[in-house]
C-alpha cells in the first residue's frame, strides 16, 4: 500500500503534548548507563573491603538477578507473579541435585535454566488464562503447592533441606575461600550481566514492544496481530530462567537449600518488593531495589539482632507505602526527578552559548 494523498489535517483540537517527557523512563537505557553501572559494581568490593560488605554485595546481586527476571514478566509484560520463588527454588534444587551427583556446578546451573524455563511455561500455560489479580493468586497457589510437596515428599531433602559438600576452592568448583568472598562477588556480577544482557536483548526489538503492548491492553495487542498467549509464555520462560540463575548461584554460595530458603512465599514477595521499590518496568529498578532491601535487612539484623527479626519487614512495608504514595515509579523515578534539573543545567553550561555573553567560559 502506498501513501498517495495526505489529507490536509491541522489536527483535532490543540493538545499536542510536546515530546518532552513521554515514556522515556520506560524505554531501554543507553549502553553508557550500563557501562557506568557495571563499573560502579565492579569497584564496590575494592572500595569496601570488609567481608560483611562483600556478603551484602553478593546477596544484593543475587537477588538483583532474580528481581530483574521478575521484572521482565511483572514489570514489562504486566503479569504480576507472586510465585517466582518456584523458579528460584527450581534453580537451587536442580543445581544442588546435580552437584550432589558430582556434576560441575557450572553445568548444573546451565541445566537448571532450561528446566526452570520449561517449568515457568508449564505454569503459565493454564495460569495465563486468568487475568490481573486472578493470575497473581494462581501463581501463589502453584508455588505453595510445590513448597508443600517438596517439604513432604521423600527424595528432595524434605524439610531438612540439602547440604552441598565443601570441596577444593576453585573457579571450576564455584567454591572459594571464605576468607575472601570477592570471587563470589565477581561471579555474581558476571551472572547479573548475563541476565541483564538477556533481558535487554529480549526487550530491544519486536518482543519488547509486544510484551509492553500486552501489558497496556491485551485486546488491542491481539488486534494488531500479537499472539498474546505465546508472548506471555516466552516472557515467563525467560523470566523463570533468569530467576533460576539466581537460585543456582545462591545454593552454590550458601551450600544449602531447604523449602523456606529456596521456595518460600516471602522470597517471592521480596522479588516483587525489590522491583517495586526500585522501579517496576524500569531496567535498573530491580537491581537498585535489591541493593536497598538487602542493605536494610542487614542493618536491622545487626541493630535489633534476634529480638527484632521482623523489623526489616516493618521497614519494607513503610518503604512500599511511601513509594506508592509519592512516586509509583520507584526509587529510580525519584532519582531521575532529582537528577533531571541538574542534568539540564549541566547541559546548558556545556553547550556553547550563542555568543552575546562574552565572559562565559568553560
Amino acid at each position, binding site marked *: *500500500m*502506498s*501513501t*498517495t*494523498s*495526505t*489529507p*490536509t*489535517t491541522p*489536527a*483535532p*483540537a490543540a*493538545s*499536542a*503534548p*510536546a*515530546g518532552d517527557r*513521554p*515514556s522515556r523512563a*520506560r524505554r531501554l537505557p543507553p549502553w553508557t548507563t550500563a557501562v557506568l553501572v557495571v563499573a560502579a559494581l565492579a569497584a564496590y568490593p575494592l572500595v569496601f573491603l570488609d567481608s560483611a560488605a562483600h556478603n551484602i554485595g553478593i546477596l544484593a546481586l543475587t537477588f538483583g538477578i532474580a528481581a530483574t527476571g521478575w521484572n521482565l514478566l511483572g514489570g514489562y509484560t504486566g503479569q504480576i507473579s507472586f510465585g517466582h520463588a518456584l523458579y528460584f527454588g527450581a534453580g537451587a534444587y536442580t543445581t544442588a541435585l546435580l552437584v550432589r551427583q558430582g556434576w560441575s556446578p557450572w553445568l548444573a546451573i546451565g541445566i537448571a535454566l532450561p528446566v526452570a524455563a520449561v517449568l515457568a511455561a508449564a505454569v503459565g500455560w493454564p495460569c495465563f488464562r486468568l487475568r490481573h489479580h486472578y493470575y497473581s493468586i494462581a501463581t501463589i497457589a502453584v508455588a505453595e503447592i510445590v513448597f508443600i510437596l517438596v517439604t513432604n515428599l521423600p527424595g528432595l531433602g524434605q524439610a531438612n533441606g540439602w547440604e552441598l559438600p565443601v570441596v577444593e576452592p576453585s573457579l571450576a568448583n564455584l567454591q572459594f575461600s571464605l576468607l575472601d568472598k570477592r570471587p563470589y562477588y565477581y561471579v555474581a556480577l558476571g551472572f547479573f550481566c548475563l541476565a541483564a544482557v538477556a533481558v535487554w536483548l529480549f526487550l*530491544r*526489538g*519486536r518482543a519488547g*514492544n*509486544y510484551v*509492553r*503492548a500486552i*501489558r*497496556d*491492553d491485551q*485486546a*488491542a*495487542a*491481539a*488486534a*494488531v*496481530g*500479537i*499472539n*498474546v498467549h505465546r508472548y506471555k509464555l516466552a516472557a515467563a520462560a525467560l523470566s523463570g530462567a533468569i530467576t533460576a540463575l539466581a537460585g543456582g548461584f545462591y545454593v552454590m554460595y550458601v551450600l544449602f537449600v531447604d523449602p523456606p530458603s529456596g521456595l518460600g512465599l516471602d522470597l517471592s514477595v521480596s522479588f516483587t518488593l525489590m522491583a517495586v521499590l526500585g522501579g517496576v*518496568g524500569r531496567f535498573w529498578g530491580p537491581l537498585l531495589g535489591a541493593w536497598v532491601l538487602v542493605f536494610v535487612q542487614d542493618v536491622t539484623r545487626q541493630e535489633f539482632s534476634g529480638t527484632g527479626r521482623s523489623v526489616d519487614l516493618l521497614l519494607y512495608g513503610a518503604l512500599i507505602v511511601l513509594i506508592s504514595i509519592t512516586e509509583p515509579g520507584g526509587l529510580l523515578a525519584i532519582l531521575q526527578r532529582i537528577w533531571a534539573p541538574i542534568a539540564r543545567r549541566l547541559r546548558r553550561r556545556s553547550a556553547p552559548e550563542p555568543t552575546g555573553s562574552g565572559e562565559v567560559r568553560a
Partner: protein
Amino acid sequence: MTSLLRIDKLSCRFGGLWANREVSFEVEQGAIVGLIGPNGAGKSTLFSMVAGAQRPTAGRLEFDGRDVTGWAPHAAARAGVGRTFQLMRVFGSMSVLENLTTAAFVRHPRLRDARRRAAEVADLAGLGPVLDAPAASLTAAWKKRLEMGRALATEPKLLLLDEVLSGLTPTEAREAVEIVRAINRDGVTILMVEHVMEVIMPLCGRLVVLHYGEKISEGTPEQVAHDPTVVEAYLGKAL
C-alpha cells in the same frame, strides 16, 4: 466484483439473547460498506466476530476465499483484518510512534522497517503533530485517529472501523471522513459501524441495517433511507 468478506447466516447468542441471528451479507473488494442500526442492534458483536474477538454460535465466516469461522484475533490481524475499538484502546505507556511501530511489526519483523512503515502511516493518518506524545495523554479525537493509524499500520485488506466518527466535533469528523476516503483510495476495503446516519450516508456505497440482531435491510444509502422497515426501526411505527 469479488467479495473479500462473506458473512453467511452468522449467529451469536449470549444465554437467551441473540446478539446476532442468521446475519448474511458480503463486502466486495475495494468497497466502503456501512453497518448501521439503533443501539443494541448487534453491530459491535458482529464486528467482534469478524475480527475474531468473539466466537460465533453458528454460521460461517469467509475472508479472502477462506473459511475463517471462529478464528483468533491475532490470526485475523495477520490475515489482513485491521480494526479499531469503539472504546479507544491505545497502548497508553507508549508514544504514538511506538503504537504504530508495534502494529507494523506484523508485516515487518525488523525494527527499522517497522519504524519506517509507522512513519508512513503517521503521515497518512495525520498523526505527525503528536508523534512523540505518550498515547495516554491524547484527547479522544487524537486517540480515535491513532486507533485508525494503528489498524492501518498492520496493512489490512479489510479495515473495520467501529464508530470512529461519533463523538467528534463537525470539523474533526470532516477530517476523519477525508482520512477514511484516502485509506480506501489506497485499496483498503472498509466496513464501518456508525449510528450517526448523516456522516455515513455520503461515505458508503452500501449500507447494511441491523435491528435486534437481525439484518432488516441492505442497499444504497438512498434505498435504505426510504425503506419503511428501517424508518420504523429508527423512529417507530406511524400512529
